[in-house]
C-alpha cells in the first residue's frame, strides 16, 4: 500500500493482505541500501497468520518517494510519523542491520510504541569503513558489490538459495545499486546513540545473528543480546544478509519469539 508520510508517498509491503490496524502489527525495517523486499519471505507468514504487517521502503528507497533520511535520529522521528499515518499505536519492531538502529531510535524517542524489539544481523553501533562510504558516494554499484561480497555468508556465495532457482546476490545487487547507499552508510557510521537507547528498552527483545557476519560481527550482536537479556538465536552458517540468505530460519525464530510475546 501507499502511505503519505510528511508529504512523501511511501511504499509499504503488507505481506500480501490488506493492512488492518486493529490487528497486532509487526513493523519490519530494512537495512542499508535495501528495501521492503528484504522481508519478502517473512512478512507473508505474519500477514496470513493473524497479524498485520508494515514493511516500508524508507524514503528515497526503491518504490518510495521523498529523500533519503540523513541520520538514524531522523529515521526514528520519521517512524513515529509513519506509524501515526498508518494509524498504529503499538508494534512489534523487527530491524535488520541499520533498520535495527532505526528501531532503537524509535524506542528512544517514543518508548510506548514498542511491544517487542528484534534485531537481525545487527549491533548497537555499526561503524562503517570510510573507504566504503567514499566508494558509495562515487558509485553505488561498486559499493553494493563490496557490501554483497562481505555481507553474504559462504552458502550464498556458492549460489545456494532458499527460493529455488533464484540468486540472492544478484537480487541484492539490483536493489542496492539503485538506492541511496552512501547516505545510509553515513547514517550508520554517525550514529552514537545505540547504547543510550538500549538502556531505555523495557519490552521483550530478541537477537537473530549470523555466525559468519563480517559487517556486524557476531560478538557485537551478542553484546546487545547480553545487555537486553534478549532471546538469542545464532545462525552459524550465515552472514549479515540474514532475512535474504536464511529466510526460513529467520522466520522461524521471529515466529517463535513474537507469538510467545503475544501469548
Amino acid at each position, binding site marked *: 500500500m501507499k502511505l503519505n508520510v510528511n508529504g512523501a508517498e511511501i*511504499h509499504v*509491503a503488507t505481506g*500480501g*493482505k490488506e493492512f488492518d490496524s486493529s490487528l497486532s502489527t509487526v513493523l519490519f525495517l530494512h537495512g542499508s541500501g535495501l*528495501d*521492503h*523486499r528484504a522481508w*519478502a*519471505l517473512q512478512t*507473508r*507468514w505474519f500477514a*496470513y497468520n493473524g497479524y498485520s504487517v508494515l514493511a516500508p521502503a524508507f524514503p528515497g528507497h*526503491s*518504490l518510495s518517494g521523498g529523500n533519503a533520511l540523513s541520520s538514524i535520529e531522523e529515521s526514528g522521528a520519521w517512524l513515529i510519523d509513519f506509524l501515526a499515518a498508518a494509524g498504529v499505536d503499538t508494534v512489534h519492531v523487527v530491524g535488520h542491520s541499520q533498520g535495527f538502529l532505526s528501531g532503537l531510535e524509535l524506542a528512544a524517542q517514543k518508548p510506548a510504541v514498542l511491544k517487542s524489539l528484534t534485531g537481525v544481523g545487527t549491533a548497537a553501533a555499526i561503524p562503517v569503513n570510510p573507504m566504503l562510504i567514499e566508494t558509495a558516494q562515487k558509485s553505488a554499484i561498486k559499493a553494493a*558489490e563490496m557490501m*554483497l*561480497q562481505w555481507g553474504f555468508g559462504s*552458502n550464498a*556465495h*556458492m*549460489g*545456494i*538459495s*532458499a*527460493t*529455488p*532457482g*533464484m*540468486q540472492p*546476490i*544478484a*537480487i541484492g*545487487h*539490483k*536493489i542496492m545499486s539503485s538506492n541511496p547507499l552512501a547516505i545510509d552508510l553515513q547514517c550508520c557510521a554517525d550514529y552514537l546513540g545505540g547504547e543510550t537507547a538500549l538502556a531505555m528498552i523495557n519490552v521483550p527483545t530478541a537477537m537473530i545473528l549470523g555466525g559468519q557476519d563480517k559487517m556486524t560481527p557476531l560478538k557485537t550482536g551478542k553484546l546487545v543480546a547480553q545487555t537486553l537479556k534478549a532471546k538469542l538465536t545464532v545462525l552459524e552458517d550465515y552472514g549479515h544478509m540474514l532475512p535474504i540468505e536464511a*529466510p*526460513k530460519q529467520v*522466520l522461524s525464530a521471529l515466529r517463535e519469539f513474537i507469538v510467545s510475546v503475544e501469548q
Partner: protein
Amino acid sequence: MSRSSFYHPDTIALHSGYTPESDHGSRAVPIYQTTSYVFESVDQASSLFNVEQGGHIYSRISNPTVAVLEQRIAALEGGTGAICTASGMSALFTTFITLCSSGDHIVSSAQIYGSTATLLRHTLKRLGIDTTFVAINDKQALEQAIQPNTKLVFCESIGNPGLEVANLPQISELANIHGIPVVVDATFATPALCRPIDFGANVVVHSITKWMGGHGAAIGGAIVDGGNFDWEMSGRFPELTEPYEPFHGIKFWEEFGPNALAMKIRSESMRDLGACLSPNNAFLILQGIETLNMRMQQHLANTKALIEWLKGQDEVAWVNHPDLEENASHEIAKKLFSQGGGSMLCFGVVGGRAGGAAFIDALQLASHLANVGDSRTLVLHPGSTTHSRLTTEAMQAAGISEDLIRVSVGLENIKDIQNDFAAGLKAAKRLLKQQGSAQ
C-alpha cells in the same frame, strides 16, 4: 563479478547452486527423482502454497536437482533467477505466454530458428498474439515495428542459421526507451562467450540441449531473468504489477522486484503449462556445464581452423561466420564476442542444392542431423529440413540460401574434421563434373 557470484565462471560452472548435502555428503549433485515432497506440517504446507517461504511442493513446479541447474545458469548469465523447462522451445513459449496475452504484439528478428519462427508466425498468431519480423539491426525498422501493444522484442544473439550477431546494446536501448523488454535466445553463444544481460538484454533464453549440455544426451531449456527491467515504469505489464488473483492478489513486482518475472513464471507458467525439466535431464546437463568454458574454447579453436581451411578450398563458394569481415555483423561481433563468434558456421558448396546434398551424403565423421552444439561435428541443410516450412521470401529474410550448409563444429581433432569435409567436397565436385558432362 557476474552480479550473482564473486567466483569466476569456471568455478561457478562447477559449484554454484550446490554444496554437499548433509545426509551423505554427496560431492556430485544428487538426482532427486521424485514427484513430490513431504510437508513437515499443515502449517508448513500452507506456507509453501502461499509463497510465504521457499521450498519444493511438486516437481512440475520445482525440483532440487533442477534448482541447482537453474541457480548455476542464473549465476553464469548474471541473472537474478532462472527457470528450467523441458526444452528450448518450451522455454520460449513459456516466456512469450507469460509476457503476452491475446491482442498483444511481438517484434522479432527475421533471422531466427525455424521452429521459433513457426511458433511466432502461426501458433501464437492462433492465440491472438501477432508478430512483426524485422531486420533486427536496422534501428529504424525496429522502431517503426513497435506498437502500443508490443510486449517484447525478440532476437537470437547469433541468428540461426544466418549467423548475424544482434546489436544488443542498440536493440535494448531502443526497446527499453519504449518500455519494452528484450528477450534474447543465447543458445549459440552460451554465457561462456557472450552474456546478453551485460549488453542490456532483460531476459535470456537457452536451449540447454546444445552447448550447455554439450553431449547431445538430454533436452532442456532455460529462462533467465536479468532483473534489470522496471515492469512498473513500463506500464505495459499489469500481470506483473497488479494483483494476481490465484495467489491472493500477490503483486509480483512489489513483492519480488528484480526477480518478479522469474517468480511469475514459477508460480503461474510452470504450474499451468507443466513443461518442466526432468531431474535426470537436469543432472545430465549439469555434467556438461561443468566443462562449458573449456569446451567452448576448443569449439572456437576448431571453428577458426575449419574456416581457414574451407576458405582455401576451390569447391567452397562462400563461408560465413561472425568472425569473418564478410559477415554483415562482424563489427558488432567483435564487441559482443571478444573471444570469437561461436562454433556455428555456414558455407555454400559449388553446385548449389545438389552439390550441398552430395557433400552431406559423403560425410563419414560428421553427423547429418537436426541439432547443434553437440561435442561432435554436426551438419545440416536447413533449406530441406529445419527451415523447410518457410516460404522462399521468409527464407531469404532469414538469410538462408538453397546451397547453405550449416555446420556445428565439434571437438574432434581438426585434421579428422578437415579430412571428412575434404571427402564431402570431392563428392560435390564429382557431381558437378557429371552434371557438366551430361549437358
